[in-house]
């Protein structure tokens, strides 16, 4: 089908099975084959064709309302969209503008901000990165110190961000900055939009453990941006950012990462001749059970979303469990890979036999997006009501 055939007026009018098939066909027909299940986060030059295809089809922003150029999907349809993308192994584009900034502007932005920025996200003209973490504000994000001081009609920004994903590819950064140092540390934080080519912005890439340059540090040295680049009320940035941590949180607990790893474990086990080893088989079966039970738990939360409920702090269970399972699977991979588990490149050049890459990637899963230790703290207080 040509891409116009996928430009529907009301996706929600489709039945769930029909919509699922539509997504599946769309991916089969239009997703570039060479970037299915990429072993690393793609840079803009690698992801651009796919981003522009999504843009052309009007499929970039499943959660945005129609009026802003999104697909306007219901919660149920969004879950199907996500599920099929993950099942297919669709490549993730530099999507911070779509996933995080867009919804924030739609809810808190000014008319002018929406009119200016949203279309440019959808056209691929603006690629955004996210500036939240700082060297001394990781798990304890509210301790951030990068500050913006109003000087006439401009904010003057000084400080440093870290773990900024794909900063080198981005045209703009949305960031949390301190605009008031009195009061509690969660207060006095504002949400600011800064062009990456502004004088005083410096990007330093950081190689991660898998030797990919996914992250950067971003330095701000007397960077000046217009007063209007602040989103929503001044000193309310923390509240706004937290309010958006809703629906998205279920993504962190999606079973697909673990499911993908498990399928690779099976390939590896076949390659090293372990499938008939009863001890391995028993552990492998346990991991299959773990995955199936995780899927059942994930579906319970998805059902609640489909019924229009909002998710509570117990959604942290999903992230905790998925990341731990993902790690256990990759650890078993290394256990059976023998000397090959120490290689730098995939075994025999086969990208699907890359236990090392998956193992190292899995290390990040329990650190980013709220470290497991912090997730446990949250659940202990908010769900278990421990003192």
């Amino acid at each position, binding site marked *: 089908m040509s891409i116009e055939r996928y430009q529907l007026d009301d996706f929600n009018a489709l039945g769930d099975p029909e919509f699922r098939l539509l997504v599946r066909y769309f991916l089969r027909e239009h997703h570039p084959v060479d970037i299915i299940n990429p072993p690393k986060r793609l840079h803009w030059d690698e992801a651009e064709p796919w981003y522009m295809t999504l843009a052309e089809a009007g499929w970039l922003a499943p959660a945005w309302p129609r009026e802003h150029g999104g697909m306007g999907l219901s919660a149920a349809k969004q879950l199907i969209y996500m599920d099929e993308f993950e099942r297919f192994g669709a490549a993730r584009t530099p999507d911070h503008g779509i996933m995080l900034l867009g919804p924030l502007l739609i809810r808190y932005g000014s008319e002018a901000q929406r009119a200016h920025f949203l279309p440019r996200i959808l056209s691929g003209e603006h690629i955004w990165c996210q500036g939240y973490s700082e060297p001394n504000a990781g798990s304890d994000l509210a301790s951030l110190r990068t500050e913006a001081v109003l000087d006439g009609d401009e904010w003057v920004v000084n400080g440093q961000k870290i773990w900024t994903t794909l900063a080198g590819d981005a045209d703009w950064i949305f960031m949390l900055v301190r605009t008031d140092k009195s009061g509690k540390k969660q207060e006095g934080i504002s949400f600011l939009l800064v062009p990456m080519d502004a004088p005083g912005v410096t990007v330093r890439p950081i190689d991660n453990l898998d030797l990919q340059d996914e992250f950067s540090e971003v330095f701000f040295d007397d960077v000046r941006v217009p007063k209007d680049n602040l989103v929503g009320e001044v000193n309310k940035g923390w509240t706004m950012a937290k309010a958006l941590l809703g629906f998205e949180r279920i993504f962190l607990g999606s079973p697909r990462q673990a499911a993908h790893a498990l399928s690779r474990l099976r390939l590896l086990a076949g390659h090293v001749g372990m499938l008939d080893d009863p001890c391995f088989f028993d552990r492998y*079966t346990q991991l299959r*059970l773990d995955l199936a039970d995780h899927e059942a738990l994930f579906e319970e939360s998805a059902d609640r979303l489909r019924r229009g409920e909002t998710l509570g702090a117990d959604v942290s269970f999903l992230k*905790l469990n998925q990341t731990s399972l993902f790690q256990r699977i990759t650890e078993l991979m290394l256990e059976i890979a023998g000397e090959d588990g120490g290689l730098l490149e995939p075994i025999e050049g086969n990208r699907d036999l890359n236990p090392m890459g998956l193992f190292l990637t899995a290390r990040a899963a329990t650190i980013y997006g709220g470290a497991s230790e912090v997730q446990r*703290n949250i659940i202990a207080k908010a769900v278990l009501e*421990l003192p």
Partner: protein
Amino acid sequence: MSAHDISEAISMIRESAAGIAVRHDLGRIRKLRYSVPGFDRTTWRNMCEMGWLALSLPEEKGGVGLGMTASCALMEELGRALVPEPVIGATLAIQTLGDDQLPDVLSGEKMILPAWQTTRSGMSTSDPIPVENGTVNGVMRYVPMAAGADAFVVATANGWGLVDAHSPTLALDVAQTQDGGHYGTLTFSGTPVSIVSDTALAGPVAQATLATAAYLLGVIDEAIERTLDYLRTRVQFGKPIGSFQSLQHRMVDLSLEAALTRASVADAARIWDGSPGSSKAYAAVSRAKARASTTAMLVTRQAIQMHGGIGYTDEHDIGLYLRKAMVMAPAYGDAALHRKRFAQYMPDHAEAAA
């Protein structure tokens, strides 16, 4: 019934269960421990009157016609209160009986329990015993609460056979179990038997297995709630011990395992009700039982640890949950057995193709 009706029926079942399965007072449970038969016949009749044995029995047979989702809800309540009456066994038995035996059984007048295991972990190896000239010879083991039965339905090579519990050619040996109940070993020596049905073993046993997983889920949930209560109130080193991060994180991990068990049991019940007896349904039941058995042992062990010295006494109720887990975790197949069965029922082509 509509989904709404079923969900309403389940709420009613849970509420009505609370009258008999009193989870905040285990006095009755303690009194019955280590006695014979280890349960209470009056309570049994009440349970039967509430229709608990007939929940998943088809309406045309005098049952309620609800599925495993409803049965599991009931079993979870019974597990929370450590109810010793042999609901799981009796429910298995009625699926093997003919229409003429059912009324007395469903009313609670007559208690019939199933005897189908010839060996330990009988799930994988049991051999039914043959019927010759209307009598059976052989041994059936691990019959829970056997001493309280009026009759047994025995898995024979010729179908399910009814045997009077008081038959002089039937010897009953009783071995007490940690939870205060017992296992019976039945030795048949030319014991008269009448064949009542040729119902296949696998389906009813799978339902009993899932019911056991649900019972364990109740044990797990209640052990966690009691431990959370203790952690919130017990003070050491000047603060409630529940404020110590190491215990908080441990409780989070246990609660996660409990949530997985709940999801697994619910999933299995749904799959079973959707396509009872399918490979997929057997696999889901095995998955739920493997998870429930492992989690129940983990949670109740840790519950003792977090209760400290008081948890190591028999007079504190938390120990009763560990004892119950010790008995129910291996019943109808332990975790290792059900891992194997899951792999048999659900080979991993799906993942391999992913």
